[in-house]
């Protein structure tokens, strides 16, 4: 019990300092890169199944649940019950949303960099190209 109390005290102390020095834990860049790659994989699986990328309006939530059937043309009966990605997977390590856009018809994923804003020079970005196998 004493160890747990000491741990809680240290956790609070380290947490306060850590909020400024390493806000989301260690190796943030690597973890964000892996999260972007995970969303990229889910998008490729979505593309292979449905023959197109989610529209900008559908966004990344199309990976979590079937878009409105009447507008999307997607057969929700065939949409995986689990979705293609968890909603947690659509956020970076710090809990901020990963941004989705179509550029020239191809997806671009962006996670905010250290400045916390999307659209600035320190963003982490993946551009996805359709491969011959569709994956």
């Amino acid at each position, binding site marked *: 019990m004493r160890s747990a109390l000491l741990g809680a005290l240290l956790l609070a102390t*380290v947490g306060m300092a850590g909020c400024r020095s390493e806000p989301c834990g260690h190796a943030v*860049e690597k973890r964000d890169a892996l999260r972007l790659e995970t969303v990229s*994989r889910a998008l490729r699986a979505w593309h292979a199944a449905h023959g197109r990328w989610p529209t900008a309006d559908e966004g990344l939530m199309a990976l979590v649940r079937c878009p409105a059937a009447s507008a999307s043309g997607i057969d929700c009966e065939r949409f995986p019950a689990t979705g293609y990605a968890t909603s947690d997977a659509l956020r970076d390590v710090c809990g901020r949303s990963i941004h989705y856009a179509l550029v020239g018809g191809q997806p671009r994923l962006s996670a905010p960099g250290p400045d916390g804003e999307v659209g600035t020079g320190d963003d982490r970005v993946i551009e996805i190209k359709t491969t011959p196998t569709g*994956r």
Partner: protein
Amino acid sequence: MRSRAPDAVSAWMRFTDFIAAATDLGMPTGFLQEIGADYTIVMGDKDAILPRIDMLILRRDTLGAVDELSPDLPFGERSAIYTLYHEATHAWLDLHADASPVAGVIADGEAHYTDAPLTDGRATSDAHRLFQEAAGDYVGSRMAHWWAALADLAVAAATGTLTEARRAAIASAYEAAQSETVFGYSPEGGLLGIGAAQVETERPAPDELRAFLDCVLLEGKVPSGFAAVPAFARFSAGSGR
């Protein structure tokens, strides 16, 4: 096994459940079991270890991502697997830091990273931390790449798209990812650690360190060659639905 405070039980149970599921999937878990037995595991607002009190802190979403671990849809476990193996590597090195041969591995590793070049053009100011992060990054990355290939195989099999070409593409991506040799960062700048930036090194990890981690922590289950991974063998082209 040490006693656990009630607030740590949930995190410990979820960590233990993860170990059981990972073992079933063919992942190396022996060193995770050591951490589960000897470290207090709690949920917090960052993923980290507190070595002085043998405490592993995991974020709720890190543990949540590997609840009911499965390589099938939905995607979402990879970053959490990286994190769990990364932090557990720090914890394991801490547990064994004073014993042979780990003490020697650490001493050699820190010597290797002394004054190592960083991507910002400077040399590291903290070889101890750079060694620790290189080891954690190596183990975490190997497992993250392993998981990505397993998930790609499982999803392709489940959706009936595991052709020879698709399997070859997954194998190629796996082997390219596992050929990575540079790992780790050191915190630079700031005052007393506050405001420091994580700057990656440009120095490759030493062969001896990688061989040690491959053998002892990864139990030889994460080889660089796709065909040598036992867990991938059940996914042949045309398997699945």
